[in-house]
């Protein structure tokens, strides 16, 4: 049900530019207006989310650890699994963000007869890393459409990525990797009944949307060629804030690609995809495990109105004397003086 719903939505999204550009010829709308609007939503939406998160107080220091914390000098401290200083936290974060280190520990749980058995499950990690790193490389390679002259780094990435020169134009390896990653991630949700049970339309939709983007991009490169020179004119115009419609018509497939990208960008800040910035705000990852060495002050704490023993004693002096309870003036004087000095 969730799967079909997301799939149908994606299909409808594909059809919108087919009708809009193919039948109605609304090139300026789909080529200039929608991408700009989507990019603005992406930008300000994400900044809004970042500030919103940064304003939320973090009551406790709750890093999740899976190694020996810093202790006595002769006990080996696991610096990445249980970071003590901020430097170690940054290092842990780096590996988390670029290599998905915690995902590498992903486990599967199976019931064999009546026994619960845990095993290693690296598929999720493999699919995720293939997908994310390929996406990054593809985005960097796409800079060739937006920048003139093309930066040499982008040029080098493209050359390395097409190293085996399969076909003309050569197929990029990251294109194959990202497809493999996306299908792994999708299959995991479809095949594994436990994950399937947990999957909502909002889990399938991004997968279908990105699959749509990737498949339209690859088709555009390999089979249904579009005028890439004209794409450059359009994209370069967008990037230099002097948008023009290119001098030659670009195929509808390109507008499908661009429209799906625009939808992704606009959807990004309000969906699960914000985990891109969310990961930096994870209190289980971004805090050092030094609770015992450094007191963490809960930002919720506010000055509580309390009564000291001496104030209390002052208030009930008569009653206490009457009842024969000893009055400790000496001590109160001492503490008051000590406080004055401090």
């Amino acid at each position, binding site marked *: 049900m969730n799967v079909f719903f997301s799939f149908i939505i994606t299909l409808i999204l594909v059809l919108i530019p087919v009708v809009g550009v193919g039948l109605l010829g609304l090139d300026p709308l789909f080529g200039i207006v929608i991408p700009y609007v989507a990019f603005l939503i992406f930008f300000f939406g994400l900044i809004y989310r970042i500030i919103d998160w*940064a304003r939320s107080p973090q009551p406790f220091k709750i890093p999740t650890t899976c190694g020996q914390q810093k202790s006595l000098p002769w006990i080996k401290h696991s610096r990445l699994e249980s970071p003590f200083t901020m430097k170690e936290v940054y290092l842990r974060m780096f590996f988390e963000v670029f290599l998905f280190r915690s995902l590498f520990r992903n486990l599967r749980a199976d019931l064999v007869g009546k026994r619960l058995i845990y095993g290693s499950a690296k598929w999720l990690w493999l699919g995720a890393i293939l997908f994310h790193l390929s996406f990054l490389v593809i985005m960097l390679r796409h800079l060739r459409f937006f920048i003139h002259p*093309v930066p040499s780094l982008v040029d080098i990435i493209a050359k390395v990525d097409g190293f085996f020169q399969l076909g*003309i134009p050569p197929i990029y390896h990251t294109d194959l990797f990202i497809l493999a990653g996306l299908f792994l991630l999708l299959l995991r949700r479809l095949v594994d009944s436990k994950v399937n049970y947990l999957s909502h339309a909002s889990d399938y939709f991004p997968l279908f949307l990105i699959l749509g983007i990737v498949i339209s991009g690859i088709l555009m490169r390999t089979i249904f060629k579009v005028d890439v020179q004209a794409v450059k004119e359009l994209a370069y115009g967008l990037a230099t804030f002097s948008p023009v419609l290119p001098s030659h018509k670009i195929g509808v497939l390109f507008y499908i690609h661009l429209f799906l990208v625009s939808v992704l960008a606009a959807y990004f800040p309000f969906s699960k995809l914000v985990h891109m910035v969310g990961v930096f705000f994870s209190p289980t990852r971004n805090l050092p495990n030094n609770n015992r060495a450094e007191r963490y002050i809960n930002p919720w704490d506010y000055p509580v109105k309390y009564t000291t023993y001496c104030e209390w004693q002052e208030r009930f002096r008569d009653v206490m004397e009457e009842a024969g309870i000893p009055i400790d003036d000496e001590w109160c004087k001492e503490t008051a003086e000590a406080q004055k000095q401090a």
Partner: protein
Amino acid sequence: MYNSDKVIVGIIIFILFFAMPFWLNFGKAKALPKPELPSDTKECVESREYMRAFHMKMLLDWRDKKVREGQVYYINSQGKFFKMSLQNTCMKCHKSMEKFCDRCHTTISAHPDCWRCHIAPEEVKKWQ
């Protein structure tokens, strides 16, 4: 805002990364180079729109037909005959590699390696 120093650095990095297409151009629009079209002929092998998008497919197709199947002529949609050859057909009308093919390819960072073996018109002139 808590940890505002770190959050602001984060926002700046985020903006710098995703606004790369904008600031790497330094905000100024230069004219993209235009390939020099032949002046003595009016029409290409196929329509201009088709050539702009599909010329690499056509070249590959020609290569396969000529080298592997031994065919010699390509018949275009108007029924005109063309000898299938990169140097002797394309480059007879498009007399320069640098002023034609490369003008597009460098703007779009495409790297056809054809000229490692095939001889560009510029190259021919050097040897004459």
